[in-house]
């Protein structure tokens, strides 16, 4: 989504802050949240902090993405993991492990396994969920919370959608339609995880939350935090960036 389109959208949303939201407006806001960190292509430098009762690790990585299909993640630090890379093309995924110098395809049976020890699964990287396509959106709340005007939206999975979550509840700031938190529920209604957004800043001309913390509900005290150090949209992707050869890096 271009910056101009975003600016137009925000302007229109400011006008409708006081009035009840129409279903179309609710969909538009959720789609905006869903596309917030995406462009036609992007390059990000992210620091990922994973905290568990047993250990705490910080990993710095560069992420290239193209549309919703192609992603290449290369770990840069710490030194022990540097060079480790994950490539996703469509529904396929490979890991490169520099220690043994092998490219390993991730089979479908391993999609629900943790990615790099984080609280994200391999499936989180490959799924191509589009919220407004796969979920029905309803406005559950519109008003002030903790001194900030917010919307609360409930996204309920459509019957035929192949998605992980049965329901996702979002809180979005009315002023700039940026997400505050998202809660992910299983099909049976159990709360499974909460994503909290913070440290809103302008990156490449777009205001985005630069810190995302994912907290699993069944593992108290554990979380994975993604801190965006830089983020550029609609960047030029080098040729063959999303090919197996590029996994080994230069």
């Amino acid at each position, binding site marked *: 989504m271009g910056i101009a389109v975003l600016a137009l959208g925000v302007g229109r949303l400011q006008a409708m802050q006081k009035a009840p939201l129409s279903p179309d407006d609710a969909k538009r806001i959720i789609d905006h949240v869903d596309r917030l960190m995406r462009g036609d292509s992007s390059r990000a430098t992210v620091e990922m902090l*994973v905290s*568990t009762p*047993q*250990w*705490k*690790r910080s990993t710095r990585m560069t992420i290239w993405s193209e549309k919703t299909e192609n992603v290449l993640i290369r770990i840069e630090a710490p030194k*022990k*993991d540097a060079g*480790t890379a994950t490539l996703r093309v469509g529904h396929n995924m490979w*890991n490169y*492990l520099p*220690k*043994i110098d*092998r*490219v*390993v*395809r*991730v*089979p479908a*049976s*391993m999609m629900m*396994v*943790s990615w*790099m*020890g984080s609280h994200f699964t391999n499936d989180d990287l490959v799924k191509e969920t589009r919220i407004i396509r796969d979920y029905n959106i309803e406005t559950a709340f519109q008003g002030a919370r903790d001194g900030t005007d917010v919307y609360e939206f409930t996204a309920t999975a459509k019957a035929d959608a192949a998605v992980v979550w049965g329901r996702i509840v979002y809180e979005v700031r009315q002023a700039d339609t940026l997400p505050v938190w998202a809660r992910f529920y299983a099909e049976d209604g159990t709360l499974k995880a909460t994503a909290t957004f913070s440290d809103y800043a302008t990156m490449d001309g777009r205001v985005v939350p630069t810190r995302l913390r994912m907290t699993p509900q069944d593992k108290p005290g554990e979380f994975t935090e993604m801190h965006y150090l830089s983020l550029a949209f609609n960047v030029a992707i080098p040729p063959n960036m999303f090919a197996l050869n590029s996994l080994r890096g230069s």
Partner: protein
Amino acid sequence: MIVIRLGWRNLWRNSSRSLITIAGLAFAFGFLIFAMGFSRGFILQLLRNGTELMVGHIEVHDGEYLPDRVLYNTIGGHDGTDWHAMVGRIRQHPSVRHAAPRVYAFGLLSTGNRSSGGQLVGVLPEAEQGLNRLFTPDVVAALGTGHAIALGERLALDIGANVGDEVAVIAPAADGTQGNELFRLTAIVHTGLPALDRSLALLRLGDAQALLALEPERIHEIAIGVGDPMDAAALAPDIARLSRAPAGAVFQGWRELLPQLSNYVDFARAINAFIIGLVVLFSSMGVLNTMAMATLERVREFGMLNAIGMKPRLIVASVLSESLCLVGLGLSGGLAFGTLMMAYLTTHGLNLAWLTGELPMFESRLDPVVKGVWDWNTIPWAAVSLTVATLFAAYWPSRRATRIDPVEALQAPVMP
């Protein structure tokens, strides 16, 4: 003694009928011996295949380890324990035959562009011998050197690995990193359990600990083999005391670890008791018929005995002794018949391959050939039950014999 002789003599007054009843009893008892022997062999085979592959008769874990098998929950907590000493103490228990430490993890195995998830099990191959039937001398030798790996046959097929190939193994390690290492495939094992054949990857304990960033003191399990698996639950507390296990360690018998198999064993025993009951019931009906006919035929004789003042208990005793002789001969014949069948069953077994093939069931598997095992716990009970039921069946005609009116009896027609 005279009563026994009387019973014996009376038994042969209608030899055809007695022989038919004796043959019926012999067939029933012989069938019971065969059925119980087959059933015991069947249960023991399931039990052995369930507890002598990857599950031991008794297993030691950290209390938090099962059912999720979380990597961090090692025996003795995060600091681990001196498991060498603990295994040594466990082996000192007179009922313990084997004890072996293990480390478990879930990982990704890959050769070239083919990969599959698998259950990684770090073992001391020499300690597994005798405890785990997968560890034949060949497999122990194959896992004798570092960076060797043995795979379940289906897993090897899935990733296209042959003996001698290099296999990349990737697993989440205890320090949060992705453990990854190259191994040489040195053996392919067949467990007969599809879930295991699809996922099992055996490697040396030290290699597994290094891959998973676990300190050498940290293990997930000690598997224990005892003399008689049926004693496992009773032995577990004793072995636990002797082992001086660290706080939080739990000792569980196979009945807790394999509840489906345990339930089936109990169910099979209940079915056995039911079959014994049915056979005893039908056999005693045959005896009842024989003894009722025998007393009916001898109404005049019993009337005469009553008339000359023979004590009723002696009349009862003579009828009961006759049925006792009947059942004694029946049981002897049955034992001989059953022994013949068991001789075949224990030597050759019954080949059910045409019916079932190798059949996974109740967390275990049934081999195509089931060999019988003498069930000396049940056979005496079956014999006693048959004897008691026979005596009960004969008691009613014997009591009837004591109540025969001599006058009426002497007027009764003479039976041919």
